[in-house]
């Protein structure tokens, strides 16, 4: 089975063909936004970091920005810096270069102020867009797809309908040779043994258990209680009692196939099949991590409803809650509430989700894209100094 995608010079395949403007630092975010304002096909990242960062924290910010530039949904990249930041535009651009796309970088201090930077940036972006428009979609095997999975605003329907349906779709994609990323490590607490059991090797199984133990230890080390954050108040109102219950409902979305690899935040997968990326349960942190890791498309299940979208990729929203599907119909792409009434099987709902993934990968717009919802948030792991 195939979808219609954009083949890149490095062999990777995109489902969108955006020109991306990356501010390497928060100071150039305003210019980046102005460069892309009302320019169809151009997007920017609302990056609020990129200065006064050291060590692993700086590396994580850089890796995430570079991952977005490298992502095959991006045709070409303009990096905008200020000039004195400790994550310079040039360094970000050079790290994206191996993806073989057209790259430019400019700095506000060097160009001579905001107005000139915006004018120069818009000129570059318009050239890039003209080049992008000449690239046609072509038939691509599904094995090239990397699907990010996510759940948020969960309620009782998430574990009973939308996550099992997404799991069935995940299995179909893995069977077609594709890749599925499962994330939100904190929401595996209480279900890790089930995932570890499916690991390709004892070593990978051990990595799963170690990750969950680390997050649980960190939560306890705050002197607080993970229950203050997870399950969230809305989860509890929706009938979810404990983190274990939330996790058990949550892991359905990864399907039933073998866990091939565990990767750290915003790192690309080196295997195909089911992958676990270590991320927080925070919706936008994890979505950002998976996109930086090379996912071209996401399916996001929700019970209570959520507007989440990505600057560079379609995010398909599905819900098993009939009321949410009705109340938030401008956000929810697919409703799978019939599963709860026994009127549709999980397998049938899963096939619908899978078909929607293929259609959206081939160009159909997700509702989050139509709304212009472009969430971006890097998982920060250190202090700004």
């Amino acid at each position, binding site marked *: 089975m195939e979808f219609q995608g954009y083949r890149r010079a490095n062999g990777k395949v995109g489902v969108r063909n955006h020109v991306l403007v990356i501010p390497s630092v928060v100071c150039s975010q305003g210019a980046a936004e102005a460069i892309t304002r009302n320019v169809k096909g151009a997007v920017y990242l609302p990056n609020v970091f990129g200065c006064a960062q050291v060590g692993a924290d700086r590396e994580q910010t850089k890796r995430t920005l570079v991952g977005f530039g490298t992502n095959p949904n991006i045709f070409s990249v303009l990096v905008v810096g200020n000039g004195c930041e400790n994550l310079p535009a040039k360094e970000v651009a050079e790290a994206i270069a191996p993806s073989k796309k057209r790259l430019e970088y400019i700095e506000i201090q060097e160009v001579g102020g905001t107005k000139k930077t915006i004018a120069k940036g818009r000129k570059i972006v318009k050239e890039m867009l003209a080049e992008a428009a000449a690239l046609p979609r072509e038939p691509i095997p599904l094995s090239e797809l990397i699907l990010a999975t996510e759940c948020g605003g969960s*309620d*009782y*329907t998430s*574990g*009973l309908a939308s996550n099992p349906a997404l799991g069935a779709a995940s299995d179909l994609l893995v069977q077609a040779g594709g890749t599925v990323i499962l994330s939100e490590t904190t929401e595996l*607490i*209480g*279900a890790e043994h*089930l995932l570890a059991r499916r690991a390709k090797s004892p070593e990978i199984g051990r990595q799963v258990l170690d990750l969950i133990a680390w997050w*649980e230890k960190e*939560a*306890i080390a705050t*002197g*607080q*209680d*993970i*229950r203050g954050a*997870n399950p969230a108040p809305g989860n*509890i109102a*929706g*009938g979810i*009692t*404990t*983190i*274990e*219950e939330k996790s*058990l*409902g949550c892991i359905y979305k990864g399907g039933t196939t073998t866990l091939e690899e565990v990767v750290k935040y915003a790192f690309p997968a080196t295997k195909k099949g089911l992958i676990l990326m270590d991320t927080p349960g925070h919706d936008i942190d994890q979505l950002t991590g998976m996109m930086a890791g090379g996912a071209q498309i996401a399916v996001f299940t929700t019970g209570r409803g959520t507007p989440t979208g990505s600057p560079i990729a379609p995010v398909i929203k599905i819900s098993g809650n009939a009321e949410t599907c009705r109340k938030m119909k401008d956000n929810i792409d697919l409703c799978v509430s019939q*599963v*709860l*009434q*026994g*009127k549709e099987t999980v397998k049938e709902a899963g096939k619908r989700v899978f078909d929607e993934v293929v259609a959206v990968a081939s160009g159909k717009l997700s509702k989050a894209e139509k709304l212009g919802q472009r969430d971006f948030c890097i998982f920060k792991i250190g202090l700004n100094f």
Partner: protein
Amino acid sequence: MAAKSKAIVINEKDNVATAIMPMKAGSAVSLVVQGRTEKVKLLSPIPMGHKFALRDIEQGTDVVKYGEPIGKTTARIARGEHVHVHNVISHRGRKEAA
């Protein structure tokens, strides 16, 4: 999963069911567990999506859903009673549990 049932039991090991519509105290719910029909009389009102006990659960023992423990009871829970944060606590991510 049974068609048109008012509540769902996911796994045969479960000692709770999930209501898929709001239900009143005193009402009786028919449930299908592994092909057998069971009737449970509700002792408390159950909001949509919330859980009730399928059998008596002693204090300090596991609440089981999806066939796995989701926490332990902080009080004895009677068959038909609402099972939620007021009488269940997580095993995990808690300072006291470490």
